[in-house]
């Protein structure tokens, strides 16, 4: 285990037991987040990235269940930690940013209160007034204009971008080591999105926090990330540094994704689309899950491939690259 690994996920499995059958939302996922890096988890709907992000701090509700695996945070397995200890980590060492800030903020409490509450939850001796002061300080750092006034505002009085900044402020209030951001910019306008992306980068640069950013937007990935993990149907299909992934995408799914994204700076003649659609998670095909849609599928693909190292720091799960 690298000492530079802040978070190590090993063979994580999260299954959902529904009336219709067992949904293997996360099925044997292993990856790591290093100190001071921004790791992006990319995938489309149903690939399991959101479930996986919640499973890290055991926030999976029935009918979902964490079936097996390890989540090592600074060497401690979070999945085996008693709830009391885990509560100390949530919101302090590991914090979350979500897609829709409107539903995360309680409409009955002011923006400042949200941050102050987080601060007080994890401090034993602080007074409310001190926590409030800290909240205003953090608002200033996340570039919320007129922080004293905004702290007294209620969520419905704030715009989408402003709310997201409040959420980010709440997330960094206790200087966490890891910030997990689940589609933080999807609901925002382009110009606001750019500002929030700068903020996320500053989390790494100014606060030395690691960020696990979950998104389906490849533009955001290219702008913000250091390393990327690509998920498909509950499994990781490729992992690499961002430049490597874009110049040398190995897995056919990654290639398909990159060719399917329109680029505002280039005139593309034809977008290459991936044939077919995401598999039914209850009735998964045998072998490689991408097999039915893969243009390079061959006989071996009836066996499920494993994640192997293609080159240093570039992993891929595909039989095309068997040794």
């Amino acid at each position: 285990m690298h000492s530079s690994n802040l978070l190590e996920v090993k063979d994580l499995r999260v299954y959902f037991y529904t009336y219709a059958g067992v949904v293997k939302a996360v099925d044997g996922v292993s990856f790591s987040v290093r100190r001071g890096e921004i790791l992006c988890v990319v995938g489309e709907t149903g690939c399991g990235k959101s479930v996986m992000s919640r499973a890290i701090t055991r926030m999976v509700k029935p009918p979902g269940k964490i079936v097996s695996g390890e989540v090592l945070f600074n060497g401690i397995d979070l999945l085996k930690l008693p709830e009391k200890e885990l509560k100390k980590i949530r919101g302090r060492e590991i914090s979350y940013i979500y897609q829709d800030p409107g539903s995360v903020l309680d409409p009955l409490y002011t923006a400042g209160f949200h941050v102050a509450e987080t601060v007080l939850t994890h401090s034993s001796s602080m007074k409310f007034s001190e926590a409030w002061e800290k909240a205003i300080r953090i608002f200033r750092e996340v570039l919320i204009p007129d922080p004293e006034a905004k702290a007294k505002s209620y969520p419905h009085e704030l715009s989408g971008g402003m709310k997201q900044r409040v959420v980010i402020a709440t997330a960094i209030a206790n200087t966490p080591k890891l910030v997990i951001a689940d589609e933080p910019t999807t609901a925002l306008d382009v110009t606001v999105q750019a500002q929030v992306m700068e903020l996320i980068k500053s989390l790494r640069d100014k606060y030395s926090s690691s960020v696990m950013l979950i998104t389906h937007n490849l533009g955001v990935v290219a702008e913000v990330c250091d390393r990327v993990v690509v998920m498909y149907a509950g499994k990781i299909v490729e992992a690499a540094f961002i430049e490597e992934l874009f110049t040398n995408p190995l897995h056919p799914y990654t290639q398909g994704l990159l060719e399917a994204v329109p680029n505002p700076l280039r005139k593309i003649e034809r977008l290459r689309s991936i044939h077919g659609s995401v598999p039914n998670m209850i009735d998964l095909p045998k072998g490689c899950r991408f097999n039915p849609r893969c243009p390079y599928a061959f006989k071996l693909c009836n066996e499920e491939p494993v994640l192997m190292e293609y080159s240093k720091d570039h992993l891929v799960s595909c039989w095309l690259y068997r040794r």
Partner: protein
Amino acid sequence: MSTTKVVLEVRNLRKWFPVKGVFSIKGFVKAVDGVSFEAYEETTLAIVGESGCGKTTLARLILRLIEPDEGSIIYNGVDVMKLSGRKLMEFRRKTGVVFQDPYSSLNPRMTIYEILKEPLETHGMLKKIDLDDYLVKLLERVGLQKEHLYRYPHEFSGGQRQRIAIARALALSPELVVLDEPTSSLDVSVQAQILNMLKDIQAADKLTYIFITHDLGIVRYLAHYVAVMYLGKIVERGPVEEVFEKPLHPYTKVLLSAVPIPDPFIARSRTRIKVIGEPPSPLNPPSGCRFHPRCPYALSDCSKREMKLVEVEKKHLVSCILYS
């Protein structure tokens, strides 16, 4: 494009929504505030903007789903606002629409068969065609199969539902199709399929698209002309390649600079124009040029004068003090 025939012409379109206070009208949401543009035959005009810019209201105005306060909408030389009865039905037949949300744009209690039959029935086409045959061919055009006719919308994925919505829009062989963010809620790979399909159908049926979106990548891929909207006004419009290669209006530059580029090398090497603040509410737009509080090139006059669209190059218009 070989033809420059104007299919749709919009002049000085205005729509303000009153905000009611307790006893009187508190103010107006100036959703669309003096918009003019043309759409040419067999081309796609993209209307881009962020939330609150009025593009969705504009879409509804064009289709005459809401009535404008001022201005004219001329379709094939005919003033749409003056249409009624049979002529209005004619207009409805020649225009199709695809909405953003695939989950609420199809009646959950109707089968696909009934959904696709409805436009044909409404316009009295049932006697002229073999219905079953026609519907099957329609479905196949959008990549679905005959079996799907007897299912209900909730049995389909988002991408499939949008295909059904597109099939519905095409059922009457329209000339103009208005698409309001049709792929925004879809995955990347599904989006690519739908965009390609739209491109092919446009070429095959010689359709004119008015495509509303906030995604500049889609604009570059699909559109021939683009109009950039900000707070109810068009700030720049012209051929897509022109506007993207040589953006004139500061807002267009800011947009192009802010949009995430799916290429890490370009993303990290380019210089970003810093824009401050957020899009203000259309309830109280800034005085003069609406962009001036956030504009990195703002001059003192910008808060006083409202600029009109001026043609700077062939078909490339911009409304900014820097070009007058």
